[in-house]
């Protein structure tokens, strides 16, 4: 298996998984080509993300990127969250093969969709 230890750790111990009962910004995005889905729930107050949870269906990188994204979002300002990039997600999971970068792209798309709903 060619995945990093960090990646394997996310697989074995997913962080920030589940639904957020008091979320005020929820988005679910689907990769139209492969069918992978990511749902992201945020509780945003005064420009800060207080809590973030994810659910994912798809290949392992989609699950891992969703988890890493939700984990890093907690405590972040919306402004900083808006500046997150696909590359930052890839780095957070310990790297991904190029052919799996679409998983990080889906995470960023879902984040932007959720932030739009928070406005």
């Amino acid at each position: 298996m060619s995945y990093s230890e960090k990646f394997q750790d996310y697989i074995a111990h997913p962080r920030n998984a589940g639904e957020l009962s008091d979320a005020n910004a929820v988005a679910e995005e689907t990769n139209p080509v492969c069918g992978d889905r990511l749902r992201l729930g945020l509780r945003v107050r005064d420009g800060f993300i207080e809590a973030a949870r994810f659910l994912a269906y798809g290949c392992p990188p989609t699950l891992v990127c969703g988890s890493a994204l939700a984990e890093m979002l907690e405590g972040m300002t919306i402004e900083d969250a808006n500046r997150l990039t696909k590359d930052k997600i890839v780095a957070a999971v310990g790297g991904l093969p190029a052919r799996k970068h679409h998983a990080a792209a889906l995470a960023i798309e879902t984040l932007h969709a959720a932030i739009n709903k928070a406005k």
Partner: protein
Amino acid sequence: MRRIYLDHSATTPVDKRVVHAMLPYLTEKFGNASSVHQMGQEARAGLDRARRQIAAFIGAQANEIVFTSGGTEANNLAIRGIAEAAQSHGRHLIISAFEHPSVRASADVLEKRGWEVTILPVYEEGLVRIADVRTALRPDTILISVMMANNEIGTVQPIAEIGSLVRSERESGHRNIWFHTDAVQAAGRLPLDVSVLGCDLLSLSAHKIYAPKGTGALFVRKGVRLALQQHGGHQERERRGGTEAVANIVAFGAAAELAQKEMAERNENVRRLRDRFEEQLSARIEDFAFNGDRNSRLPHLSNISFRFIEGEGLLIHLDMQGVAVSTGSACSSGTIEPSPVIRALGRDDELARGSIRFSFGKDNTDEDVDYAVEMTVRAVQGLRQLSPLSQPSAVVV
């Protein structure tokens, strides 16, 4: 970490007795089987014995066996070899919807060059129907190729029935028609007798029956003409050029003999393990489907689609716990390719993406099964907790 191999349809470990049989042919009996000197002749003797063993394994004559580099080459040689040799008689082929890629791709190549290919449906149960074969037949049909058992779901096809259909076709005047079966997955698990099956060509692979990778064979019934696919060698009675991999072929022969001798015992063991696995799993999780007709499949294999989750995730979870299995679907460059085999059964995308093949082998134990069940249940439950498809209601972890 405990390591449990449940991917015997992908490949098998080499049996120690087989290693023992092949070793002398790597060291002191290393000669080229085409050489005239004694050392060449020693290698030739090993090759000839293996040819007799493979012939006995499938009820053929030794001179009807052509050794190849594996199942893929055997399938290519059969499909393209017949099509090219028989093109003056017709350019129509019939294959099933879930043939191995080496058959499917060979047919695709021919199609691009002007041949016509009819694809037989396999329905929800994963079985070719003889009525469809009959309907697909045309006066210009020169080849039917249907696998004996499917590689992903293990369903066993009506090969002997197709064989007798081809025979009666010939008797009624359609003389230039041949029947090929890819028996790579069936070998060692089902009795093989080319007379009973009525096939003209049959493909085998060594590494599926506890011999090394890199060797296979094609049975070519006496009198059947093939167009050469490898030029520049007189080996294999001018049917396949290239120096024979004598040590591997000796191993293949030894493995075939053992497979034949121990088939009943091995099958009884893997069937019991497979049934134990399926029973335990059924008792502990819901929302899954067995793929393929459960009454007509190889004894060692269980193919299961789990709802709400994707096969690759489950495979990696199991791998991290030391359990090796396989999935037919693959995700790359943002495109998911659900298993074409599971798709051919008419399953929806979610089931086609969530399929996993567990294939047991002669050395697996009850403990292996129990551990694999436990790890599968945990992984499925864990992945379902993360899945938006299985979580319409709010659950905070």
